């Protein structure tokens, strides 16, 4: 206890840095986070430059390769082997990054936006509004996320946009709860009371004071939500609820039906899965690193 007090006293004598630069410093030193950035960076680059990197088109079929049955494994011409319709697995994986990235980002964006609005409103205005919104969120949370997504897809029909919306909606109550908690905690803070005492209108307080301070848990949760979104989307794809065109190179969809070929062509099942794991791992590493870097309890310590 005394050493901690001593250290904190000592730190006050040094020049204070902003929350962000401190956090950035801590993040930079986190080996896991660096690996995470590497993985995610690769993932994003692959998604963007897929057409340049892929030796073949994602839908290009070469049925002569599978005339004798499924399926040739990795070779010099086809680095990751070939699938049941003679398509190059490597190219499909590269293009698949686009789908996972796009779907992941859009769904989290949807969940974040609506969740933010609902949560901020509920937390800030309190009363009946808070009660109604939160009850609704509780009900949504009563169904396990993935099942809720399945339900929504059942309602909307299968397809890429539908799973984006489904996963997005599943994220809404999570962000709403998070933001409401942050807003509630801030609302009673002295600086908010001070602003009100001077007559700053409520929506300005919300926008300029409360929201900026609530950002850190949001960033962490957003990153982790991206990781979960990619997994959920792959899951929905695997169940056949994703892009209905089987030629679409979405990683989860690429895994559907590969069980049949486990004996003869295991690479079809293993490789897309590894791609998913690496992408998700990257986001999880970053999210963890961010959580540690932004932890207010660690402020003022090295």
């Amino acid at each position, binding site marked *: *206890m*005394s*050493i901690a*007090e*001593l*250290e904190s*006293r*000592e730190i006050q*004598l040094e020049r204070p840095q902003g929350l962000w630069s401190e956090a950035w410093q801590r993040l930079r030193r986190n080996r896991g986070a660096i690996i995470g950035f590497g993985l995610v960076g690769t993932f994003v680059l692959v998604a963007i430059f897929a057409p340049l990197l892929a030796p073949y088109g994602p839908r290009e079929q070469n049925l002569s390769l599978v005339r004798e049955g499924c399926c040739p494994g990795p070779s010099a011409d086809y680095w990751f082997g070939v699938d049941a319709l003679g398509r190059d697995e490597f190219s499909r994986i590269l293009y698949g990054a686009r789908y996972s990235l796009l779907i992941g980002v859009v769904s989290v964006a949807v969940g974040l936006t609506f969740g933010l609005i609902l949560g901020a409103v509920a937390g800030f205005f309190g009363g009946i509004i808070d009660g109604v919104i939160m009850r609704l969120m509780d009900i949504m949370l009563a169904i396990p996320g993935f099942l809720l997504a399945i339900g929504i897809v059942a309602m909307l029909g299968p397809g890429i946009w539908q799973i984006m919306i489904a996963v997005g909606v599943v994220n809404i109550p999570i962000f709403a709860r998070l933001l409401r908690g942050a807003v509630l905690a801030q609302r009673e803070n002295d600086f908010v009371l001070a602003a009100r005492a001077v007559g700053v209108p409520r929506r300005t307080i919300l926008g300029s004071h409360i929201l900026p301070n609530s950002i850190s848990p949001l960033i962490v949760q957003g990153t982790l939500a991206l990781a979960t979104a990619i997994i959920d989307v792959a899951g929905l794809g695997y169940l056949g609820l994703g892009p209905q065109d089987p030629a679409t190179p979405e990683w989860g969809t690429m895994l559907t039906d590969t069980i049949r070929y486990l004996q003869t062509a295991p690479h079809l099942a293993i490789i897309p899965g590894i791609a998913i794991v690496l992408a998700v791992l990257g986001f999880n590493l970053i999210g963890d690193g961010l959580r540690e870097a932004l932890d207010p309890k660690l402020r003022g*310590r*090295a």
Partner: protein
Amino acid sequence: MRTPLLTVEDLEVRFGTSRGLVYAVNGISFDIAPGETLGIVGESGCGKSVTSLALLGILARNGRVTGGTAMFGGRDLLKLKDEQLRLIRGREIAMIFQDPMTSLNPVLTIGKQLREPLQVHFGMDKSQADRRAVELLEQVGIPSAKQRLRDYPHQFSGGMRQRVMIAIALACEPKLLIADEPTTALDVTIQAQILELLKTLVSERDTALMLITHDLGVVAGMCERVNVMYAGMFMETGSAAALFSQPRHPYTLGLLQSVPRLDAGRRQKLMPIPGSPRNMLSPPGECPFAPRCRYEVEQSRQQVPPLEEIEPGHQVRCFNPVPADEWQRERLGGAA
């Protein structure tokens, strides 16, 4: 003076932190005799708590004793292995801590927590231990002791909880009781009661008491001898009477001066000690108090002054000690 129970010499404790080594305790020596009450006074962060934790071998993970000896019952506590120390903890040396709310396990009954040391050290069975536990609770002044055994910590008030802590500490009749800021977390009115209780109990049992605190008032009422600690070292040691009437170290003087007095006039300025405590990330190379000291001389900035006897039984660590009558003059004539 009787043969000391515990003799500590040149104790050094360091902590490894991400910002480097913290030199928490830098060579302190003291002893305590049976039945004696020794006070260790100092600001937060001076290393007083660390000292007692080091003696019992319950420092935090990153803490290490890097020097010194602590002779107790013919053995050096600092060299004992954990299994050996364990037999001493709670049995021969017991400790009570600052915050009774967090120092008691919230999911266990008081009875259970009282029985633990009795069962472990004396091998008592449940009914024997319960009987003794009831005795102990009554001795610390908790009514309806038998029923209270089944209660949980959150069902007691702050003062009561500290009484329970005292009961637990005295359960095995230890020879030495270390009380680390026992009243700091309590209301002022309760503080006096707890201190009275402690005083009575230790004198009844002839237990040695090491009282660690930052509160001069607590020390004045309780301790025969006082050691003033700063930056991991003793700055002044002696009898309470001597220190309070004739402090010789500028730090001790400063501490006494900074206490607001009811009998001072309304226009009397408060006299805090200027500056902040020393950065403990480096071993002391000069008098640690020098940067804040009115009496510093050139030598203060060059070496650490040794702890020397300035009068029988009264030691000071200073190159330019305060004149013996300085404090009395200030008190009687009004502060400068």
